[in-house]
């Protein structure tokens, strides 16, 4: 396959960026998108041009490190992570535009690499269950109905990649926050902190300059692990409950 790439190049956080055009020949349809970028980088290096910086690590779709906007879609045309996207999803002769996640809360570090530490701070604000090591009762002390456990699990599969923010027209992180609120809120262990958790996490989210949620649904549509959109409603229910009880 022959592919023309238009890749966002930006030297550093405060530098101007631009789209640079590169041509690649001999791209195999079995390559992953990132392997295609590896090939580009090998070529650039030998041509004395600095390779394109992009985040990636596990390359099996679970660590959440990778993520770029491909032709206007977060993670590209398939519902998966960029590392699991394969070139067979493109056609010979395609021109592909590759841009970084765009959000004020995710400043560009270099090229396609952005800083997502805002997500960590949202978790710090309350995305946990306080259970100091050694204090736990027996694992079977609290049975969890299977549907609750399954829903908690579905929400807990969030990989924190940030595609939801990247795709949201408001650059809102609501799906990320809602996934955590739902995960912990479905479990008996998560109940004691449930009311305060949602308020603290929402406050932190607002402080990070994420936009507000207007229920457009792009987030869930691009989510590589399929975090359901209704987690946002669950968050809202929890939030209304907390506010009406005067929490926060």
């Amino acid at each position, binding site marked *: 396959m022959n592919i023309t790439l238009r890749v966002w190049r930006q*030297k*550093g956080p405060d530098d101007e960026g631009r789209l640079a055009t590169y041509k690649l020949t001999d791209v*195999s349809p*079995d*390559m*992953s998108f990132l*392997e295609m970028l*590896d090939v580009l980088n*090998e070529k650039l*290096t*030998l041509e004395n*041009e*600095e*390779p394109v*910086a992009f985040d*990636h*690590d*596990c*390359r*099996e*779709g*679970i*660590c*959440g*490190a990778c993520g770029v906007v491909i032709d206007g879609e977060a993670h590209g045309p398939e519902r*998966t992570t960029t590392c*699991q996207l*394969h070139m067979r999803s493109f056609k010979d002769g395609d021109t592909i535009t590759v841009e970084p996640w765009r959000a004020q809360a995710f400043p560009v*570090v*270099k090229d396609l*690499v952005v*800083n*997502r*530490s805002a*997500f*960590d701070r949202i*978790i*710090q*604000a309350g*995305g*946990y*269950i*306080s*259970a100091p*090591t*050694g204090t*736990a*009762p027996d*694992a*079977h002390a*609290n*049975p*969890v109905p*299977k549907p609750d*456990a399954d829903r908690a*699990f579905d929400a*807990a599969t969030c990989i924190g990649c940030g595609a939801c923010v990247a795709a949201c027209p408001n650059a809102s992180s609501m799906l990320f926050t809602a996934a955590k609120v739902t*995960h912990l809120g479905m479990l008996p*262990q*998560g109940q004691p902190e449930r009311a305060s958790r949602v308020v603290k996490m929402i406050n932190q989210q607002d402080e990070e300059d994420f936009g507000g949620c207007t229920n457009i649904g792009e987030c869930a549509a691009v989510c590589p692990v399929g975090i359901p959109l209704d987690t946002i409603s669950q968050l809202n229910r929890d939030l209304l409950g907390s506010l009406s009880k005067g929490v926060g």
Partner: protein
Amino acid sequence: MSEYDFFIEGDPIRDEKAPEGPINERWDKRRFSAKLVNPANRRKLSVIIVGTGLAGASAAATLGEAGYNVTSFCYQDSPRRAHSIAAQGGINAAKNYRNDGDSIYRLFYDTVKGGDFRSRESNVYRLAQTSVEIIDQCVAQGVPFAREYGGLLDNRSFGGVQVSRTFYARGQTGQQLLIGAYQALERQVAAGTVQMNTRHEMLEVIVVDGKARGVIVRDMVTGEIETHFADAVVLATGGYGNVFFLSTNAMGSNVTATWRAHRKGALFANPCYTQIHPTCIPVSGDYQSKLTLMSESLRNDGRIWVPKKHGDTRDPRQIPEDERDYYLERIYPAFGNLVPRDIASRAAKNVCDEGRGVGTSGLGVYLDFADAIGRMGQEAVEAKYGNLFDMYQRITGENPYEVPMRIYPAVHYTMGGLWVDYDLQSSIPGLFVTGEANFSDHGANRLGASALMQGLADGYFVLPNTINDYLADGPFEALDESHPEAVAAKEQVTSRIDKLLSIQGSRTVDSFHKELGHIMWEYCGMERNEEGLTKAIERIRELRAEFWRDVKVLGTNEELNQALEKANRVADFLELGELMCIDALHRRESCGGHFRSESQTEDGEALRHDDEFAYVAAWEFGGEDSKPVLHKEALEYEYVEMKQRSYK
């Protein structure tokens, strides 16, 4: 040439901390004999923890909660991305919730046997004891383990055992456990007890007066080389499987932290013990950057086979039952498809070497779910393995519900690592090593679902009960950046970076890494022998020299420079690779994941030589261009009788 041309034998060593007495009392004894630190004094004691996987995040969260002043580093942009996250299958615990005869003793026994009698009894017993607490801890943190309709936890069985003791969260157990530890860690960050530094890579350890007192790290965004001091340093930096270039490790997984510590005096134990995982997706082309594991839990319901005929290229669905060779079930009727990983991997290699491999490369065997789908229905199979099947389909473009999967072994885990005593302290006082980074409790082969168990055991329960024995003597003398050892360590780091950037040769870092990987896989992979290993050592030396002459790294240090990061890591892999080959060469026996073709039974199974090799090989760095020094730690078995493993 004999193997003695490659190393020097030094004095034997012992684990001085290991308690004696009845095995089930040893951990209690050690906890009781260890010095304690008064909670009020903990704030004055600082601990650096490098790595935020299961072993690092759990240790940071626990020590932070206990009141120590913790500084944590990871190279990823968030601690949540450490590679523990990719573990799929599950975590073992001797809960005996199934009432199927499991016990702490049986988990201990299975692990010692699975490790082919090359691990320490005391450590393994402690691991089995601790396993029970881990599950409780994780459930309390909100880890959504799989449950049954009654609301209680579900279990499944895993390779190498006959009981159901594996707890799991669909095919994403590592992710869920790590997120639990990560959340506990972030809670401590918020509480101010842990200072988290992401996108920081440790490049050197600072040793002052024989004690580990700090690290040199590079801020991967600005390139700043920073000096950090503490009263103790913990390395939880994972394994070194990426020395093979193609492995199931993350692209960033590397040996640098442990290797730099090794060069500063920490012994490196059993480097040649690598685990080749039997169920990975086969290689598709030379652009391939990594291999993807399919959880071994698939072997619970999938059946492994190859055609009986050589070079049978028919569609697998067209091959009739009697022309298929379910070779694991045939050779190992008792364990069938659930034999330990090393055995399953080698069996796959053998049938492929015979020319019966499948797929275009001939390097693959079928993992077939047709029977399972017939027996349980597609829905049940989907519920159990859905995400793995989806992943397989995404990568290969084939639908595994219809066509059998193709699998092939790939490097997955390294049992070797820095030598530690019962307290998890390395041979450098004050330098502790947890998780895969230490030479651990797995001996020569790790059983499935035991890595997560060990990482969390070390981080939540072992280290927090042993590091106090060392810290009780602190706080140690305050240091500043002008200390000669700190200056020297920093200078080592900067001069190496300057060197890498100044060569401006003609080959990319990846091209060296790939070549190293080929050498390692060819000669130090599933099957090793004297001739190949000798050749490999020679070729690695040449390659290393060429690397330092001809590598091409563009850009500067003062920016995000991923090529420079890789170059730093590959430089260390090029040294480690040689030591692995020397270790493999010196161990003239087969055991677990280490298979020497010169040492096998008549029917091709690994043949140990317990009289000669029942020891831990702990290697001391001999100095630049000098031979490494071998220290032997004898292994004694008081409880489990050493015998030839048999899974037939």
